[in-house]
Structures are given as C-alpha cells and as structure tokens.
C-alpha cells in the first residue's frame, strides 16, 4: 500500500462563477458521499479544503532565530485549494479515486505518492 496526495489547485482570477446555494448544497452532498465511499473502501487517511493563501503564515529558522511573516511561502497565481490523503494499492487505484473527485469538483487533481522514510 502506498499513500497518495490528491490535491486540487485553484488559479487566482480563474475561479469559477459563484454557485447558487442549491448548487453548493448539491456539490457538498456529492463530496460527502464520496468521502463516505473512501472510508468504506478503507483508503481514507485525511482530507480537507483550505482557506485562501491570504490566511497563510510562514515560519522560518534563521540560525538560532525564528522569523514569522505574513503570506504564502511562494507568491504564485496557483494555490493549493484542498487535498486528500489516501492509502491505495497502486497508482491506478489512486487515479480512479482522483477521477471521481475531479468529476465532482470540476478542477484537475494532481496525484503524488508520499515518499517513505529513507531506508537505514
């Protein structure tokens, strides 16, 4: 089994037109149903949607000192919007979950394997 991150990215200024409350409700219902399916199948590890990049804070160590600043780490037009972490048998299994996610949320999904700890 391998852990995969399924991430959805949003592009600033390219957000889809605002949805009607009924549509929001509809998508939420589908997402919850899919997450239920992931848990049922035993692949679910974690998942969630993120607030916008303007809510991000960066902490970095400079020698002995720690400096905290406002803003995302990289000033970019693309931002991580949300993610799932799933544990699946192989890439094809992970891709089939990603296919279900993208058909609900409408955004492309990037699938990446987690690296294990280096072998000692």
């Amino acid at each position: 089994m391998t852990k995969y991150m399924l991430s959805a990215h949003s592009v600033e200024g390219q957000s889809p037109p605002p949805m009607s409350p009924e549509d929001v409700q509809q998508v939420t219902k589908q997402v919850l149903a899919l997450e239920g399916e992931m848990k049922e199948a035993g692949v679910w590890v974690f998942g969630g949607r993120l607030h916008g990049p303007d809510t991000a804070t960066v902490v970095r160590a400079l020698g002995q000192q720690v400096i905290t600043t406002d803003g995302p780490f990289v000033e970019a037009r693309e931002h991580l919007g949300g993610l799932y972490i799933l544990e699946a048998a192989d890439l094809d299994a992970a891709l089939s979950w990603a296919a279900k996610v993208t058909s609900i949320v409408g955004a492309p999904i990037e699938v990446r394997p987690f690296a294990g700890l280096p072998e000692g």
Partner: protein
Amino acid sequence: MIIDAAFVGRIFRAESGRSIAALISAIGDIDLAEDAVQEAFAIALRRWPAAGVPPNPGAWITTTARNHAIDRLRRQARERRLLGDAALLTSPAKEADHVFDDRLRLIFTCCHPALPTEGQVALTLRLLGGMSTAEVARSFLVAESAMAQRLVRAKRKIKAARIPYRVPDEHELPDRLPPVLSVVYLIYTSGVSGGDPSLCGEAIRLARTLATLMPDEPEVAGLLALVLLSESRRATRTRPDGSPVLLAEQDRSRWDRALIEEGHALVRWCLRRDRPGTFQLQAAIQAVHTDAATAERTDWAQIVTLYDQLLTIAATPVVALNRAVAVAEIHGPAAALVLVEDLDLDGYHLFHATRADLLSRLGRDREAATAYQRAAALAPTPAEREFLHRGGRTARSCKHRQQR
C-alpha cells in the same frame, strides 16, 4: 554456426524482452530484472561457444537470469535481514493469473499514461525491444546521457508512484490502449523519418506481439495492418540520397506483396468487426493505395470516404490536409486549395508543400515558389529540404509533369 558476440546479440534482441518481462513479474523490480538478464547473456557469451547453444535459448536465459536474481535477493536479505524481499520470491499470487503474457503487462506499464511520451518510448525500446540505451539514444538523435536520464526518471516514477504491472481491465482499455498503440506507431514512424530500419522492424515485432496477445482488439489489428502496409512501400519511398519519392512515382513492382496481402487480410478482418478506430481507418487508406496497380487506378473516392470517417473520430488538421490531397484527385486542385487554406498548420512542412503543389497545378507559379521555400525551411531532413527547394521536383517528376 559461429557462436560469437553478434550471434548472442541477435538472440538478445529477439528474446530479452520476454525474459525481462518474466523476471519483473517474478521479482517486481525493473532494475534487478534488467541486471539479471544482462548477466545471463554475459554467462551465455562465455559458455555457449564451448558448450553449444541450448535447444531453447530464450528459456535458458530466463532461467539463468531468475536464478541470478534470486541469489542476489537472498544475499541482500541476509545482509539486511529483510524478510520482505525474501517473501517476494515465493509470492504465489503471481502464479494465479497467467492468462496474459508477461510482455503484455510490461508494455502497459511502460506506456502508462502517467509517464511522459518520451519516457514511454524509451522504456518500451529498452525493456521490450532489448535495445541498449546507446542504441535508443542514437535512434532518437539525443545524447546517451539524456536518454539514460529519461529512463532513470521513468523507472523512478514507476517505483515511487507504484505504477502497476498488469493488463488493464476491459473498462480501462479505452484510456490505456491508445498510448500503447501510439508508442508502437511512433517507433515505426521514427524509423522511417530517421532512416533507421531497425526501429521499423522493432515496431512491427511489437505490433505482432500485441496482435497475438490481444487477438480481439480491432485497433491492435489496425495498427499491425498499418505498419505492415507502410513497410511494404518503405524501400520505394526514398531515393539513395534520402530525398522522398512521391506516392505516384514509387516503383510499385518493388512493393512487398507478402506484407500487402497480410495487411489486406487484417483490414478485411477489421471491416467485419465493424468497430472502426483511427489505426484501422489509416490502415484501410493504405490498403486502398496498395490495392491500385498504378497510381492512376487509385480509388480516390474510397479514400475520401475513409478520411471523412477518420475526421469524425480524430478531427485533426493533419487528417483534413490529407483528405484535401485526395479531394484534389477527384475535384481538382482549386477545390482542394479552398480546404487547405484554412488549416492551422503553419509550422508543418507538408502543409506548405501541399499548398505549393496545388498552387503550381493551378499555374500560380510565384505563390507556389514562395510556399515551396516555406516548406523547405521547415523540412526536418537536409534531403527533404533540398527536394522542396527544387520545388518538389526530381528529374523524373519534371518529365512526368510535362507529360501530363
């Protein structure tokens, strides 16, 4: 029979794909499988000259390689006390479903859509075609170090992302089969354009293997028919100096009849299945060409119909361009030029060459000359560039045009 490095090399090209596929199936590690098969061939090169070639050299190689790999895994397991590796050796799961050939699993891994096309091609030639990294690099005109990088990157992704080693389920095939077929066809066309017949031969061998292993897939049969029919004409498509010979001017008596008959039989089988696809339609178009005893007797109406069908499945500007060439033969160059002008193919040399030819047939010589220069500037090989600079003419085709 002389058993030397060249002899063993030939066996390597023919057999190593099967051995590597079997080894990956047994031990689940591409690098180890490759090393073990290399080692088995090194042993063969030392042993066969004195002891003679075993009755089934491929099976001998696979067995020797498997023993070698198992030894190495056991050593590693002892050294690292990793029971996981040892467990791999006796995994009974692999024995359960031997319905498919290991090579079929391997080609679907090599051509997984999660890998970049260049990585798919390199892996397929390296692992299934038994070509060395240097040979693959030469065929695609890239530095050996760059090709080695592609292979390393592709293999790393297979391992890290766990790209599976299995034949996709029926419902996955519409997504998974096209890249496999495209890779094989790309290997073939690279062989034609780069003048490397060994790539053409390798592509045909891969297409034959696929057709044997997936006998019910019309597109697989279509691919095999397409490469066979293209191959039947390959020798007549270029002059010794590398310049192209137009279809109408090719020496049809030198077309390979055996390949044509085999290709035609496959196309007829596809027609009976009635599940058309892009490779089947391209093969059918080739079948119409190779069916005509002379260029004048080509059934152009049939070819236009086939291009119409192809456009409904693959509406690309290149298909539209080729359709226009066929239209010119029925309705004349003016009708075809109208179809060509709107196509978004400004960077494609054959677009300008086609326009140039139609313009010159309409007597618009100055515009034709400009288009030929544009085509020549974009042509991929020096011989084609030279040919287009001359206005797509050879001594023979000038005479041919005058006669018309």
